[in-house]
């Protein structure tokens, strides 16, 4: 309902603060600033911790923390580049396939007797090349990323299947084999979680505190305007897909170490979990909205929930239902006020035509 009555405007400061919907640049009332998706996530995290601790006495132990971290580590690492890709309004569905492919490359080379370091380097290089392929098709040819990455998800896993038809059996060198299954000495922190923590801090610093990072929001909200504002949109798009490939291959190496074996079926179907984690973190699928904090909280909630449900021996099916339910409320709740207003208006406004 548009207001037709013109009221005299209250006196304002000389320079009115510009407001950009979607980007929080205006200062709000303190309580309004508190109503954010991230606050809801904090409450949810506390709730899951309560649920977890009531179900098992041994919940608040280092072991729980270790296994929760171990299970979520690779997903969490892949979620960070995906967050930035979704921020600019694109999507990468090939993340889990890249995890499998890079693991397979490492496994094949290692089995063939290549030094371990070289095998890992080759795996990371695979990630760079695969990411560059996605990035080229999306950024330079202008193809829709959802279609491209569904294609490359099939392609990457297909190549993994060709080069490594059977899971590797050669044990990885003893110095690194423990990286995947043991915590950092003296702590209960798995290596993959430590890697994630470092990357998350770096991502947060980049996204929220550098001009290039802030430009991701501009690209997500309005690519043409961003282009005119001097942001190299094409280059950023390309760069993010390359980064995604690289970090997913890193996750692939860690995943293979965790399982003590590389396999083409590693992380099958995990792409949807990673997407779910990012979206549940409050990142808008249309781009331009979302924070690193949100995704980190989302990772924590999913990790705690998985661990709690596993400890309470809840079936995997229920975990699926919980994942789906969380994802659904993450889009429904922020939209509810608007829907409520619309429905109310519809009831109040007499129908103009039948």
């Amino acid at each position, binding site marked *: 309902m548009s207001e037709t009555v013109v009221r005299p405007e209250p006196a304002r400061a000389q320079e009115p603060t510009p407001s950009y919907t979607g980007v929080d640049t205006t200062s709000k009332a303190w309580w309004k600033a508190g109503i954010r998706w991230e606050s809801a996530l904090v409450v949810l995290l506390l709730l899951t911790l309560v649920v977890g601790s009531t179900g098992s006495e041994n919940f608040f132990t280092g072991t729980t923390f270790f296994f929760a971290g171990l299970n979520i580590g690779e997903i969490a690492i892949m979620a960070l580049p995906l967050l930035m890709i979704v921020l600019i309004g694109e999507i990468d569905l090939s993340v889990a396939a890249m995890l499998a492919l890079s693991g397979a490359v490492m496994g094949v080379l290692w089995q063939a007797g290549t030094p371990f370091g070289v095998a890992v380097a080759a795996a990371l290089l695979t990630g760079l090349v695969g990411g560059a392929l996605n990035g080229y*098709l999306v950024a330079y*040819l*202008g*193809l*829709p990323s*959802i*279609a*491209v990455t*569904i*294609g*490359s*998800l*099939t*392609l*990457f*896993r*297909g*190549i993994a*299947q*060709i080069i490594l*038809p059977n899971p590797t059996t050669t044990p990885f060198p003893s110095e690194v084999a423990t990286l995947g299954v043991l915590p950092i000495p003296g702590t209960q922190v798995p290596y993959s979680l430590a890697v994630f923590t470092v990357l998350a801090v770096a991502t947060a610093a980049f996204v929220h505190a550098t001009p290039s990072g802030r430009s991701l929001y501009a690209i997500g909200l309005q690519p043409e305007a961003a282009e005119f504002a001097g942001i190299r949109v094409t280059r950023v798009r390309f760069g993010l897909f390359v980064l995604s490939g690289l970090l997913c291959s890193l996750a692939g190496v860690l995943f293979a170490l965790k399982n003590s074996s590389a396999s083409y079926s590693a992380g099958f*179907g995990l792409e*949807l979990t990673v*997407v*779910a984690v990012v*979206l549940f973190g409050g990142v808008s*699928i*249309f781009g331009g909205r979302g924070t690193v904090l949100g995704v980190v909280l989302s990772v924590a909630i999913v990790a705690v929930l998985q661990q709690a449900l596993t400890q309470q021996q809840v*079936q*995997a*099916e*229920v*975990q*699926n*239902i*919980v*994942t*789906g*339910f969380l*994802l*659904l409320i*993450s*889009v*429904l709740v922020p*939209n*509810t006020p*608007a*829907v409520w207003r619309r429905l109310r208006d519809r009831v109040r406004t007499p129908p103009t035509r039948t």
Partner: protein
Amino acid sequence: MTTSTSAPRSAASSRTPLKQRVGGVLRARETGIAVLIVVVFVAATAKNEAFASANSVQQLLLGASLIALLAVGQTMVIVTRNVDLSVGSVVGITAYVVGMSFRDNPDMPVFLGFLIGIGLGAVFGAITGMVVTVFRVPSLVVTLAGLYLIRGLDGLLVDGVIINPQSIPREFQRIGYETVLGIPVLFLLVLAVVVIAAYVMRSFRSARDLYAIGSNPAAAELAGIPSEKRVFTAFLVSGALAGLTGALFVALYAQVDVTAGRGYEFLVVAAVVVGGVAIFGGSGTVVGAALAALLLNTIDQALVASRVSGFWTDAIAGALLLGAIAFDRSLSLRIARRLRSQEGAHRDV
């Protein structure tokens, strides 16, 4: 984006010169895919004669049928600039429910099996459609959530108990293996759905609305198109077709466990995209999508028949998909350039 949307036949189109119309048919995406199917088929037969045997061709058609059927519903949804990722899970749960109904009531008539499948699928489609239109939330997220929710429900329902062929009545299984004049009945059934859907999508005003919504949602709204109703219907039909696919799954394989239909969502979207449906809506035909499903399955089978390691199929399917998207893009760029230069040449037309 591409011009292959086959605009509704107007009075003007009957006057288009024959040459132009022939050119249109030759340039259509459907023709290209059909030619590719023939090429792959001939090449595979040259390598292994058994590929052209009646039995092999029947398997080829059957294998493509389920995905082709899903591709019809998915096309309707994608044309409106939405996507339905929950179809795989819907196939899984409806297949199990249909199988369960037959197991618990061995005397249930065959048509009831279909009715249960379609009805249950339609319920899921309606819920998805409601959530997408009432809450105005992105369908990608809603259907991704649906994929997990329905898969979870399916898992609870199955609970490790597999439906086996003994529980499925013979008459129902016959739909899966019986043939008419050498053509599988199940394939004919799917063909009928494709033909009906193609006709509706081409000639019905409400179906043309779907293209308008996908081309420009705001403009469609301004033009008085009831967008919400249309998008809801698209999801409803997609769900119902996924339910039908679930029932046919039971007839074809006569065995249902928790993995039924898993991963179908990507296969279907791949077929739809290769079939020339623009992922951002507004263009594409169900025939193209269904043909692409057949093409992907033909390639799959051809590789097996040529004794190329089965491991290659995924890589080739992926490369093909990327190629199709890139090809589409170059085509639409060329058309856009030509339209622009035409506009410049004669302004007053």
